[in-house]
Structure formats: structure tokens, C-alpha cells
């Protein structure tokens, strides 16, 4: 048995050194961003706890028309359609925000073409607002199939590689709405209607961090 007070034999030290040589360098690799982020984000509420909370709210005779679940659900016809749109925008974000080689179809270097093209396809003017004062620069954009027609996705990125996407699609017969919020797993979405366009701003983050950016986007889109 190894006595902790006795030094290891040379042969044992050689064993340890061999293992250190084989596996040591793994710890020198750059840390993946997702792990660093995981230490910062408050943990997601566990489903069981959320269900218990929903029941508690219900039993308390709450007049709130929502359930405490992972999603903040909208009620009413119009709101549900808009929430579906927000979920679709969140999915598009998850698909393309992690894309390394082809995050966008048209790069920001060709911004005027990007804006003209997407505006023509959507049938209404859409223009990504500048967010450089918040540390985010435009990467570019792409055309996507939306819930009821073409949709535009603009992608932004900051210096540490975090990406936001702004999703826009036309919404027929609409009015303006206030901000609505949806947290879908680790994806946060603020969405709203502005005249005939539905917008969603999506980030792999939480509400508190996304809100100030969403407010700027909202202000700057309000032509």
C-alpha cells in the first residue's frame, strides 16, 4: 500500500509522468464557449419544478392566463400564431447561429444587395439596424421559409463570437404589439409586430441579457 508520507518509487513516478504526458495537454486546449457560458447562465428550471409551480398557481386560483412551463405561452388566436412564429425563428437561430462555414447567404460586405433582395422577397422594406454601439456587427443574412411565406434572417456577432439573429416576416392583418418573450431551452426570443412585419430577436442567452438589445432594435426599426 502506498504510504502518503513516503515518496513514490522512480517506477511509480514514471507511471504518473507517462499519464501526465498522454492526457495533460487536453487541459491546455482553449475552453469551448458553451462551457464558459454554462457557468454564467442561471440553470434552467427543471421541468418537475415548473410543473409543480404551474399546479400551485392553478390551485391558488390565479387569474393569470399562462402556465409556468419552459415556454411563456400566449393565449388567444393571434398570440398563438405569433408564438408559433417566434418558435420557428428560435429554431432558425439554433440551426444557423452555430454554423461556422456558411452562417449567411449574403455577407454584410454586400449589405445594400442584401437589403434590396430580402425586401423584395418579403414585399416590404426590411433593414437590419446597426448595433455596433452594443458590440454587435452584422454578419449578413439569408432568406428562409417562414410560417406563411418568405422570412429574412439577419445575423449579428460580437467580439467573443456570440451571435444574435433578427428574424422578420410579413404578417397579414396585424396591429402593433408590445414586446413578448419566449425562452425555449437556452434560446431567448423577444418578438413583436410593427405595422405589417413580425420581428423576432433571438439569442442563445437569457431574458435579462437580451432585453436591452431588443429595445435598441425595436427603437431603431421604428422608422
Amino acid at each position, binding site marked *: 500500500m502506498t504510504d502518503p508520507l513516503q515518496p513514490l518509487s522512480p517506477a511509480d513516478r514514471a507511471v*504518473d509522468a*507517462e499519464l501526465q504526458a498522454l*492526457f495533460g495537454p*487536453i487541459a491546455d486546449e482553449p475552453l469551448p464557449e458553451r*462551457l*464558459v457560458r*454554462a*457557468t454564467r447562465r*442561471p440553470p434552467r428550471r427543471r421541468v418537475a419544478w415548473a410543473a409543480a409551480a404551474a399546479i400551485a398557481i392553478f390551485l391558488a386560483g390565479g387569474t393569470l392566463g399562462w402556465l409556468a412551463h419552459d415556454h411563456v405561452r400566449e393565449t388567444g388566436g393571434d398570440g398563438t400564431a405569433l408564438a408559433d412564429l417566434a418558435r420557428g425563428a428560435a429554431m432558425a437561430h439554433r440551426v444557423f447561429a452555430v454554423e461556422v462555414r456558411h452562417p449567411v447567404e449574403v455577407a454584410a460586405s454586400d449589405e445594400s444587395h442584401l437589403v434590396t433582395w430580402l425586401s423584395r422577397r418579403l414585399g416590404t422594406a426590411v433593414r437590419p439596424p446597426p448595433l455596433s454601439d452594443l458590440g454587435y456587427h452584422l454578419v449578413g443574412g439569408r432568406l428562409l421559409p417562414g410560417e406563411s411565406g418568405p422570412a429574412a434572417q439577419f445575423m449579428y456577432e460580437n467580439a467573443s463570437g456570440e451571435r444574435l439573429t433578427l428574424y422578420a416576416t410579413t404578417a397579414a392583418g396585424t396591429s402593433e404589439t408590445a414586446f413578448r418573450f419566449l425562452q425555449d431551452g437556452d434560446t431567448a426570443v423577444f418578438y413583436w409586430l410593427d405595422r405589417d412585419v413580425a420581428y423576432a430577436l433571438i439569442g442563445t442567452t437569457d431574458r435579462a441579457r437580451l432585453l436591452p438589445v431588443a429595445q435598441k432594435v425595436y427603437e431603431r426599426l421604428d422608422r
Partner: protein
Amino acid sequence: MRDALVAQLPGLRRYARTLCGDATRADDLVQDCIARALERDHLWQGGNLRAWLFTILHNLHMNAVRAGRARPVHDALVEAAQSAAPADQHERLAAREVLARLADLPDDQRAALMLVAVEGLSYEEVAAVQGVPVGTVMSRLSRARARLRADSGEPPGLRRVK
């Protein structure tokens, strides 16, 4: 707490890599570990953060093993060591033999050795991670090192005979 967690990430990733092999799965394990730690940080009484995190990681991995979701040990070790494989042919052969012997160790012995030799945990910390007395850790280490020593004479793969 956040900065302290980040400081533990390199070691946790490395240990997870020797358990899972594949870097993505290892990082998934570390991410689950961090999420679990944050969920339970109200239960954490202060004290040894490193030992606590390695304990969570160990338990999560054991759950995966019991559920049949873990990879064979040998494949995991070979894949983990690949990024660090020596270029020299002779050293590579030596490394292959060490990996084979390491893979042959009982899981508890191998884990104790990796935690002490590579992660630099103390015997007390390993005892906390494995949930056994310090004396048990010491005997696990002693047996593991004896089997890995180059002069142990036994070729790897033949000591499963019991």
C-alpha cells in the same frame, strides 16, 4: 463562484475526456456537471469546490454507465490520448501499451490513478469523489501503479484471468 467554476473547467474536461473519449460527449458531460452544480449551489456548504465538481462529474458518468450509454473504456482512452500522441514511433508504442494496461484496470483503480496522477487531487479528495475511505483510495492507487509499471512483466490483456 462563476470564476471558480471556470478555473475548474480544464481539469474537468480532461478527466471527462478519459471517461468518454469523444470530445463532444466529454464536453456534454462537463456541461451537465456545471448545470447540476449551479442547480445545487444552494446545497454547497463551501469547502472544496474541486472535489465537489469531480464528485458530480463522477456520479453523472456512473449514471451513464449504468444506463449503458458509456463507451468501452479502451476506445475512450485511446481517443482521449490521441490529441496528445507522441510523434516518435517508439514512444507511440510505449504509449499504446500504457493505454492498454490502463484500460485493463478495474474502473475504480483507473479513476483513482487518473485523479491523483493527472488531475493532482489529494487522497482525501479522491476519497470524497469515490465515496470510500482514504485507505481504500491508497490501496487502489498502489495496485493501479503496480500494474502500470513498465517492469511489471505481465503483458497487458492477460490479467483478466481470475
